[in-house]
């Protein structure tokens, strides 16, 4: 039998029908044995499907997952992602404006006076550090 109400039965047993459709179907079920059987069958099916036992997770699953998370980069707070680059730029700009002697055209020897660049004093010619320092001084090799 192809009763038009059959299409509503699945949502009916899930309690997902709008109120008026639910009321209409409930009234219909009083007169349609075929739909009543379909409701019973789908409820039985639900019981059958729901009866299969659950899987028991491995005892080590939680700890293993947390351990893996430990090796991931810590999620950066928005302030770290946004402010740190900005503050870094401001620091470098301030040095450039207020203490330009370390960046003059006299060459890299001036850099010795700036502690933070002293490490690069002995960079070999042509190396990345050497090129970098030349660029920031505004000169060329």
């Amino acid at each position, binding site marked *: 039998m192809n009763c038009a109400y059959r*299409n509503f039965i*699945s*949502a009916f047993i*899930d309690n*997902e029908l709008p109120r008026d459709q639910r009321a209409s179907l409930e009234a219909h079920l009083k007169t349609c044995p075929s739909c009543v059987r379909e409701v019973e*069958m*789908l409820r*039985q*099916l*639900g019981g*059958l*499907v*729901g*009866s*299969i*036992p*659950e*899987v*028991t*997770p*491995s005892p080590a*699953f*939680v700890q*293993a*997952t*947390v351990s*893996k*998370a*430990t090796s*991931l980069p*810590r*999620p950066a*707070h*928005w302030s770290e992602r946004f402010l740190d680059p900005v503050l870094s730029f401001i620091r470098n700009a301030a040095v450039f404006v207020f203490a330009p002697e370390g960046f003059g055209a006299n060459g890299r020897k001036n850099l010795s006076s700036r502690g933070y660049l002293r490490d690069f004093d002995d960079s070999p010619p042509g190396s990345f550090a050497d090129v970098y320092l030349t660029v920031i001084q505004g000169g060329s090799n």
Partner: protein
Amino acid sequence: MTRMNEIEAHIMADVARGDLTAFQTIVELHHKPLINFIARYTGDRDSAEDIAQEVFLRVFRAAKDYQPQAKFRTWLFTIATNLCLNELRDNKNRPRLVELSDLQEQEYPIAAPAASSPQKAAQDAELSAGVRKAIQNLPEKQRIAILLRQYHEFSYEEISRIMGISTSAVESLIQRARQNLKKSLISYL
């Protein structure tokens, strides 16, 4: 927001700050239903744990993006659903059809109620195998929808958010899934 939502929102805020204790709480609360959902979807318990672990790691990485207006469980299962669908698509790993002979007790260590007799135990095992096979034979989206509804009691609205489809599409998927399951399991009804 319900009380549970509030609590999980606070926990997730801690996870977003990299708090591993908070993350462990999330994993402890949700790992069993998540693994069961994935195991029922893929038919494979071992890959289910791998996929579930990946889901939680994605939760950890994306914690800062979590919107507390949505239930955490809905968000968690959205990630899991996308991974399940992509896992099969990327690996071209069609769901393994579970044969009765495949199902050994050690493959699915379960907390099943004690059977009253060996014959009953065998009947229960056969029934379970039949149900698992019927679920595995469903098309992907019908399988996802019926699992979310039948085992995890998500509403149609929640399922629509998880799957990114309309509620009428969810209703249609579940209806068709039930008709297909009925055909497969008619001998048990």
